[in-house]
């Protein structure tokens, strides 16, 4: 009951025309970048970060979150029509969505994904409302040792489960932790790894890293493309599903939302894992699994519901524990810190208004998205006709000026170029950047918690095995490591190694 009073307060806060406007801008930009395969959500959010400096905290976070879940809606459009996933989480939507559109059912596929996304998001929001207080209470009982282990769990889970090769994912995660240690060490005051450059003494800025990695690499890859043409014409009439299709998708949507909510709450696993798992589950329990991959509506709606509910429940570990589930959440944590808000269990007490305002904005944003995605679908499809070679030079100059505008420092522009080249080389060696970014964001809090726990225990490592919470997190870590070893062996069986 108390939650609903809080929610009403949040809605009251949100109904300020200013915040409402930023919520709308957020979901609009989110859908836009989701639809276009050339720009990722990460690049879009990091491009918007410099703009949020002057905004009030609530408006900034509402807008960035709107980009995030708006892109989950938009991402499925390109997947269904062109077989090009706009976001990694919507890659699953290609599997059954594209065959559906080849069978002339594109309208129905688009309508059902919008509905599935909406229901998934609503269930995710309810889970968020119910569980955030519980998780925050749990978080209050955590000491530095528990935090350290939980961060380790998040990092290991995200780097082994998402990327193709667990080994490379872990290497990138460790590399991210190392890059985060550049700059002045808080405890000793010594500037580490600055190689004599004064500009490195403050550390590498997150905006520079994200723009170099997720902005430049994406553009270097795609700048040869001309445009993403589609000849589909979608009318509102062709979008109406039959009663049978509605009945067939109801339970997959509900199952997908539950799976998504679960994976969202776990630190280290985000929408991508959720949507793949939901698809696999649906395929396993289906009575006709051979239809999957040839336009089975169950697989499409369940994975879409899963990634939307996961992107909402993902705010639980992000806000309540300060541990991000995926790269976007890592940027949202950085944005909160920039605005002087420290994410963690104390947030529900000190920043009560902010949290409930954010939750209320999810409601409003999702309703806006439903309106944008069903009656206005034709507009988004026409966006796919914009020639890409007009688009990418503007994104590049936006990156340059955006990076410069943060600190008014030319060094940041050079760093973006250098990081972009390094990242492009690593991309060509099949490295994955999500573990890197999580490691980069969690590096400093992790080192600090590690030091603090050893300080408390007077140098004894037993502090990491002492409490029940520690032991349960350790066993979770063990399970994840075992799972990744099994996955590693499976991959090697498919692609036999070179001796």
């Amino acid at each position, binding site marked *: 009951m108390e939650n609903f009073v809080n929610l009403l307060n949040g809605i009251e806060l949100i109904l300020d025309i200013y915040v409402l406007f930023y919520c709308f801008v957020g979901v609009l930009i989110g859908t836009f970048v989701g639809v276009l395969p050339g720009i990722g959500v990460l690049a879009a959010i990091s491009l918007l970060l410099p703009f949020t400096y002057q905004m009030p905290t609530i408006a900034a976070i509402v807008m960035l979150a709107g980009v995030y879940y708006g892109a989950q809606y938009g991402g499925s459009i390109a997947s269904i029509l062109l077989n090009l996933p706009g976001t990694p989480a919507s890659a699953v939507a290609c599997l059954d969505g594209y065959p559906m559109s080849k069978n002339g059912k594109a309208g129905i596929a688009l309508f059902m994904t919008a509905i599935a996304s909406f229901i998934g998001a609503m269930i995710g929001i309810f889970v968020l409302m119910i569980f955030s207080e519980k998780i925050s209470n749990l978080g209050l009982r955590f000491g530095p040792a528990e935090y350290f282990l939980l961060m380790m769990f998040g990092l290991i889970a995200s780097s082994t489960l998402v990327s193709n090769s667990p080994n490379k994912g872990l290497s990138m995660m460790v590399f991210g932790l190392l890059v985060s240690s550049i700059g002045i060490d808080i405890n000793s005051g010594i500037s580490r790894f600055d190689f004599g450059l004064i500009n490195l003494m403050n550390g590498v800025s997150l905006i520079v890293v994200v723009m170099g990695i997720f902005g430049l690499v994406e553009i270097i890859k795609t700048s040869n493309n001309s445009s993403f043409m589609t000849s589909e014409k979608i009318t509102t009439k062709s979008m109406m599903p039959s009663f049978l299709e509605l009945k067939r998708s109801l339970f997959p949507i509900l199952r997908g939302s539950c799976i998504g909510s679960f994976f969202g709450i776990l630190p280290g696993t985000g929408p991508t894992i959720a949507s793949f798992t939901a698809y696999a589950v649906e395929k396993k329990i289906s009575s006709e699994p051979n239809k999957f991959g040839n336009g089975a509506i169950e697989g499409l709606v369940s994975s879409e519901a899963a990634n939307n509910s996961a992107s909402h429940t993902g705010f639980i570990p992000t806000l309540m524990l300060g541990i991000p589930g995926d790269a976007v959440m890592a940027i949202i944590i950085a944005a909160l810190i920039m605005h002087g808000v420290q994410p963690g269990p104390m947030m529900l007490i000190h920043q009560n208004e902010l949290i409930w305002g954010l939750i209320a904005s999810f409601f409003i944003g999702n309703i806006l998205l439903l309106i944008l995605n069903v009656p206005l679908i034709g507009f988004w499809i026409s966006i796919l006709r914009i020639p890409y070679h007009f688009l990418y030079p503007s994104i590049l100059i936006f990156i*340059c000026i955006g990076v410069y505008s943060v600190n008014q420092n030319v060094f940041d522009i050079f760093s973006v170029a250098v990081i972009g080249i390094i990242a492009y080389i690593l991309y060509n060696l099949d490295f994955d950047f999500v573990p890197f970014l999580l490691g980069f964001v969690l590096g400093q809090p992790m080192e600090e918690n590690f030091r603090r726990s050893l300080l408390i225990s007077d140098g004894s490592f037993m502090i990491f095995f002492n409490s029940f919470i520690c032991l349960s997190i350790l066993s979770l870590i063990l399970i994840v490591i075992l799972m990744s070893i099994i996955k590693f062996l499976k991959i090697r069986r498919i692609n036999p190694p070179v001796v």
Partner: protein
Amino acid sequence: MAQAGHSTERKFPIYHSCGCRISVMNKDKLSGLLLISLGTFISCYTLLNYSLGNLNNIGPGFFPLILSVLLLILGFLNFLFSNNQKISFKEINFKSLFFIFSGIILFGILLEIIGFIISSFLSILIFSFCSNKFYIFDRILLSLGIIIFVYVIFIFLLGMNVKIYP
């Protein structure tokens, strides 16, 4: 033609077991080598420059040392358990890489010397060379269009503090 013949030859596993050139061009082996050298460098640098401290009060070098040793181990794992995937130079977009890099560097150099408008005009012109869909007139028109757009957003709406004219 010669290159195509070369790549079909490599499908036979017998060619993989001999010849060091192939093993260097293997994606996993190369990334393993990269990680090993990075790990070695960072661990040596840490040991030489930063103190490790005691266990009850660890110094600035402790955490980086653990991490770099981990990186070293992971590099070895990458090198030993490598998959059969070679770098394909056809996939690498050298042209875009070159134009984008030089455009950004030029922007950084010129911004505080000749101002925002001319430097972004030049950079957009360079960026547009990544794509060969343009005629020269299109490129100039595009650059002017983007500059107006960027000027309105950053200078007019956000009031960014930067030198605008030469």
